């Protein structure tokens, strides 16, 4: 994507808020123009008063004095209004952007969001959204204001004195266009270096913290610290070199403003002496033009800093568009789901590969599970046990045929399938909220009795009753206040509460002591009597207690 295309898409994204943003830019322009007018009128006013003082002694000073007051008020109020409006626009935009991205990502998960292996997708997305949010406040708005105000000031000055307008226009282009562009170019290489050294420093810091025991045992702490010092030095050196370009640009804008003042004074003076201006107003115009020219640079002063952000914004936009533009691999068709005849499942020659360069997770799986059967799958990790569930809720596309309730699995709408099939997975997560919040997340209509019953089945009812706020107790970030075994059972309760006809239980007894595990399996057995259940476990005791049938899986196949 070219810079222009990125910019166009960003602006298109911001479209719903263009009213707010336009208003913010308008008020910002009014503020800058009031500032220019204030200086211009003040310059003209004192010169006219001085001329009147030495000549007629007469002067209508009400109008210019009122003008000075007016522009002073506009500038003051405008600055306040502009800041409020631009933040209002940004906050609205922020909310919209987040929601837009979130909605785009839902149908992509989990299959299409795993491309960046090991990377923290959520964290980097979060940072990118924040970068974009600032793009409007600190990049788009200053550029718009600079353009509009520069043109307006140059046009007004051109009416009064064309040569000054020409000089002013040239210097504004230098300060607002050439200088930021040069600064960006100068900062590009060290800026990229700084990003790279920051990444290296982060990795080395995390290495130090997470590998401290290993480093100490190896006597390598000092070596790691020395390496960190080197990386840190490289980072600050590159940061300074990149920022030096900004310092130079800031000073160059100041120099341009000074030159504008100087040129206006010189050119206007020449015109006065040559009699090229109306004799009545001419002399007073000299200080007016000089001061207005100087003040006009308020419009372009933020541009070097704003342009510096463009690289960062573009990179963030690229990453976000790249993700958001992926089309979901699995989409619901137009037809409604067929009514399932029963809760039976048949896998025939099913193959699944998570990525082209990975070995197949399922490799010709044949397995028939009749309605109401309780089946246990045993097998080493990596045998493909957990993949079964992911296919049944249509998280991944597969080869071969799966029939559920007598119909091809692909004929069901994915949402309906997720109502039919409940999964309590190993990697299911809890939400930052209360026990009740977490249960309601699964089944918003569930009443207290249903929740109690689900907790009873998973042997958590007593524990929850004894919490300070009972079911409304906050369980912390990702259930941090629960033990691993409790968290797993809450996930199980959540799946039960949805009352699915088919239930997949992934290692429900892990992290439980033997007696709790026994009780859990017994109550699960009773609670799931009329459902089809697939139990995935390492625990042969639980398998024997729970199921009608046990199959072994290895290398993506049933082996016995």
């Amino acid at each position, binding site marked *: 994507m070219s810079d222009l295309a990125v910019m166009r898409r960003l602006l298109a994204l911001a479209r719903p808020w263009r009213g707010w943003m336009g208003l913010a830019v308008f008020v910002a322009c009014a503020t800058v123009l009031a500032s220019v007018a*204030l200086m211009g009128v003040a310059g003209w006013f004192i010169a006219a008063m001085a001329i009147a003082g030495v000549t007629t002694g007469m002067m209508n000073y009400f109008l210019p004095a009122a003008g000075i007051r007016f522009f002073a008020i506009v500038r003051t109020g405008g600055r306040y209004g502009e800041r409020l409006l631009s933040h209002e626009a940004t906050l609205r935009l922020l909310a919209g952007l987040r929601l837009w991205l979130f909605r785009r990502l839902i149908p992509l998960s989990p299959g299409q969001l795993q491309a960046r292996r090991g990377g923290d997708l959520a964290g980097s997305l979060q940072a990118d959204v924040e970068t974009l949010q600032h793009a409007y406040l600190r990049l788009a708005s200053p550029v718009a204001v600079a353009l509009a105000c520069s043109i307006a000031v140059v046009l007004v000055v051109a009416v009064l004195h064309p040569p000054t307008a020409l000089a002013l226009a040239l210097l504004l282009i230098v300060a607002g266009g050439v200088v930021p562009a040069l600064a960006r170019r100068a900062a590009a290489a060290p800026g990229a270096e700084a990003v790279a050294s920051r990444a290296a420093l982060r990795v080395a810091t995390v290495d130090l913290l997470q590998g401290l025991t290993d480093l100490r045992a190896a006597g390598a702490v000092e070596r790691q610290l020395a390496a960190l010092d080197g990386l*840190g030095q490289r980072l600050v050196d590159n940061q300074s070199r990149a920022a030096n370009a900004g310092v130079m640009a800031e000073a160059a804008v100041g120099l341009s403003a000074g030159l504008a003042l100087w040129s206006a004074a010189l050119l206007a003076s020449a015109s006065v002496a040559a009699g090229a201006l109306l004799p009545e107003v001419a002399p007073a115009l*000299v200080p007016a033009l000089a001061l207005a020219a100087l003040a006009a640079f308020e419009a372009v002063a933020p541009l070097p800093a704003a342009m510096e952000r463009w690289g960062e914004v573009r990179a963030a936009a690229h990453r976000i568009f790249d993700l958001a533009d992926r089309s979901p691999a699995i989409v619901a068709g137009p037809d409604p789901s067929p009514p399932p005849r029963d809760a039976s499942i048949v896998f025939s020659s099913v193959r699944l590969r998570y990525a082209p360069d990975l070995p197949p997770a399922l490799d010709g799986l044949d397995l028939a599970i009749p309605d109401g059967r309780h089946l246990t799958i045993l097998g080493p990790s990596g045998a493909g046990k957990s993949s079964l569930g992911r296919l049944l809720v249509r998280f991944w596309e597969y080869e071969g045929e799966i029939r559920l309730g007598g119909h091809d699995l692909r004929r069901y709408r994915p949402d309906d399938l997720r109502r039919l099939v409940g999964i309590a997975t190993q990697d299911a997560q809890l939400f930052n909220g209360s026990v009740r919040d977490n249960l309601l997340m699964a089944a918003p209509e569930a009443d207290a009795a249903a929740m109690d019953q689900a907790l009873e089945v998973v042997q958590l009812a007593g524990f929850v009753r004894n919490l300070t706020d009972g079911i409304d107790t906050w369980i912390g970030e990702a259930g941090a206040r629960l033990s691993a075994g409790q968290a797993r059972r809450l996930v199980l309760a959540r799946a039960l509460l949805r009352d699915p006809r088919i239930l997949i239980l992934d290692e429900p007894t892990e992290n439980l*002591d033997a007696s709790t595990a026994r009780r859990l399996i017994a109550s699960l057995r009773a609670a799931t009597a009329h459902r089809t259940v697939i139990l995935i476990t390492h625990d042969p005791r639980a398998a024997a207690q729970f199921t009608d049938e046990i199959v072994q899986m290895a290398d993506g196949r049933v082996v016995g």
Partner: protein
Amino acid sequence: MTGNPADAPGRRRAGVERWLRGEIAQAARSGVRRAIVLGALAAALAVPQAWLLAHAIAPVVLEKAPVSSALLWLLPVLPLLVLRFFLATASGRAALAAAGRVKARIRSALLRHLASLGPAATAGRGSGEAATVVLEGVDALDAYVSRFLAHLGVLVVLPPLVLVVVLPRDWISGLVLLVTAPVIPLFMILLGLGAEKLNRRQWLRLLRLSGRLLDGLQRLTTLRLLNAGDREAERLAEAAEDYRKSTMAVLRVAFLSALALEFFATVGIALVAVLIGFRLLDGTLGFEAGFFVLLLAPEFYAPLRQLGLDYHARMEALAAAERILDLQAEPSMPAGEERPVLGPALTIECEGVSFAWEPDRPAIRDFSLRLVPGEIVALVGPSGAGKSTLLSLLLGLLRPQSGRILVSGHDLATVDPAHWLGHVAVVPQRPHMFEGSVLDNIRLGDPDAGLDRVREAARLAAADGFIAALPRGYDTPLGEHGETLSGGQVQRLALARAFLKEQAGVLLLDEGTAGLDRGTEAAVADAIRRLAAGRTTLIVTHRLATVRIADRVVFLEEGRIVEQGPRAAVQADDGRFAGLLRDAGLAP
């Protein structure tokens, strides 16, 4: 309680700023001074520049003098402008260089402190969070030096200088400037204090809102599984809307300080202009002087307006400094200094050792155990029994709160930790793979070890097979951006590390719970037996295969030994052994 608790954050801020100033003085006193002086000089040039301009324009305005006479005054302005440009650039560069030195110094000290904290450095907080303070936190200090401090010079020099030149020429304008100037910072401080309080609350809200999105993104799969994606989206929208409303309510107040600043600066300039105008009409003031003063009036307020902008940079830097100080305030363990000769045959004795992470939750209670050379002791127990804590105590990473640990008769608390660890081969529960090649990761403790020695160690650790199958063998990159290894593979690399440490008389090994298949399990158990030969060995394990190579088994529960004895004896009572293993979380 003394003092008003509401003052505490403010006082704390002052302490934080004092600390930061001290660090800056240590790292870059001369650089900051140069930045301030050069910046002040650049700003001061505004005065002669205005003087020359006023002299150039006055005759043109009043007498329509020819341009040649104006040019005479205007020409010297050009070198002044250029000089100002160079001075400003040099000041900025000096400030950035000083900021760089300050950041490097503070970051280096922070990392050293974190390294000295040991495992406590990341306990109760992710390493990601600490890394954020090390990187972003330290970077946020930049603006304090490169903007706030560097601009102080201008603030100190320019307004007084303007006053000094304006007052003798036009005392009325001087008085206007003099009266409006102090009102500005006063208002800003008053409004800023209130805004800061609001700001912090808002900052917390923003963090929570960010957390909400992060929460949703991280749990997207679960949300989909529950068909709850749309519900979560609605909640996100509500949260964002709430945040917008509350933030705007705060900003309406917070921006009042900017409004006040702008108001007084603008009114000041307008008042100066109007008052000059009337005295010009009366003839009580010369145009030259009047224009000179009007040119200087914006310069007078400019540093004050800049201060308003820098105020936020300062607040952000101080907030970051506070987080850095929080980390640095965590006490590191006092280290012993003795370096006794421990010899190749080492015994370890725990005598009534107790340790608690939190006062009323003991992790290890009155633990006594003797480890001798040549004997493999397996420590088993359910998760949370205190096994890993015990290992940290033996490594000297933690210190017993009562009782003591003797190594060949020396109290471990008095021994230099680095000296002690020199005698220990360690395989931690989750061995860390560093950014670098497989080769470098194995020879972590001995960077000069040759490939042959590393290969031999890998072979003994049953690791050479899978290393050879990696895309680039021993040169395969590991770590954050490298190859991802399975838990079992990582463990075998850590074993190879331990094999390379031939001189170590002690082996402390935490097997963790990484899932291994049968074949690998047996190979690892074999490797551990080879590694333990002749050493004083303690193995924390969850695997039956490893228990089977032990000479003695110790069962730990809730920080206490519940059973111990030679493996053969414990194993003889079949039912009881099975029960103990089951309680310890091992499948029989």
